[in-house]
């Protein structure tokens, strides 16, 4: 692959990391796994520490982060989509939001600079977990046949149209949803990483070329790299938010069917 006569590495080289420990076994650990473990630890530490200092009335430090995160998920995700009885999903949604956020944001953290969610494994696992949860909630709150009836035969549709609507609903509710959820997160992270890599390589190549290359790197590609880094921070937060809010929408949809 050749972009603008640059030595652009093959796409696989950007996302395949060699194993660091336990090479060849099922438990091989590479950079992606380390980032996931790190973001899991950070999420656990933040909420454990914040849960311990419950005496302080005015939140500060870690507790402030945790409390504003919880309030954010409660007000702009749960209350907007599920309603008050969605509060029991708060722990799940909040931890998922922070886990996805921390494993996305490594995209712009210096020396890490790899969004762990640009590998498909964890996004698809999270999406399958979400799939299980919203189907379970649907069966639990409407009964098995009630849930099937409400999701396959949406009310308010003319009878004859069910020939078209039912297969579409079947495929979109039970097959496409988890995949679109996972692909949305994964593809956004892949695209962001490719964008950053392209501009970083462009800057480095121009700088190495010398002469007019210095001007090109300083004026064109380097500011663009900084701009894109800022944009990717936005995308990381937004994708974590969208994953969480879509989960909440799916749970809400199987909790309160349309009438």
């Amino acid at each position, binding site marked *: *692959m050749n972009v603008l006569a640059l030595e652009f590495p093959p796409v696989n080289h950007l996302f395949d990391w060699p194993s660091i420990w336990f090479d060849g076994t099922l438990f091989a650990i590479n950079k992606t796994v380390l980032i996931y473990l790190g973001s899991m630890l950070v999420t656990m530490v933040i909420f454990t520490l914040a849960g311990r200092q419950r005496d302080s009335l005015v939140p500060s430090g870690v507790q402030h982060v945790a409390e504003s995160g919880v309030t954010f998920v409660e007000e702009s995700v749960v209350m907007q989509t599920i309603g008050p009885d969605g509060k029991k999903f708060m722990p799940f949604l909040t931890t998922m939001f922070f886990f996805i956020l921390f494993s996305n944001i490594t995209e712009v953290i210096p020396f890490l600079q790899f969004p762990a969610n640009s590998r498909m494994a964890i996004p698809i696992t999270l999406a399958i977990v979400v799939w299980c949860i919203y189907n379970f909630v649907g069966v639990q709150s409407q009964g098995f046949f009630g849930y099937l009836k409400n999701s396959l035969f949406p009310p308010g549709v003319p009878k004859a149209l069910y020939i078209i609507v039912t297969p579409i609903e079947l495929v979109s509710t039970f097959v496409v949803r988890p995949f679109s959820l996972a692909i949305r997160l994964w*593809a*956004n992270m892949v695209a962001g990483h490719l964008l950053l890599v392209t501009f970083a390589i462009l800057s480095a190549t121009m700088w190495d070329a010398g002469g007019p290359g210095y001007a090109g790197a300083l004026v064109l590609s380097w500011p663009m790299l900084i701009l894109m880094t800022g944009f990717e921070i936005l995308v990381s937060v937004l994708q974590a938010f*969208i994953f969480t*809010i*879509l989960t909440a*929408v799916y749970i809400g949809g199987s909790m309160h069917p349309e009438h």
Partner: protein
Amino acid sequence: MLNLLAETDPGEMLEGLKAIGAGLGYGLAAIGPGIGIGTVVGNAISAMARQPESAGMVRTTMFLGIAFTEALALIGFVVFILLLP
């Protein structure tokens, strides 16, 4: 032009066609979602301007609409990655 085509190695030709297909495919896949996201955000902004007190609800729904619309463009992007030689 024909001579050039005849001299080209068929494997190389296939690679080139793949690259063209990937580029065109992503470009075409981005048209519809581009228009769609424009419509979603434009209408959300006009709704927020008319009723600033409902901005929170509109913003949430806007992100949902963007997420659903954007999925098509992302599938185009995935095809682009898969087709790259």
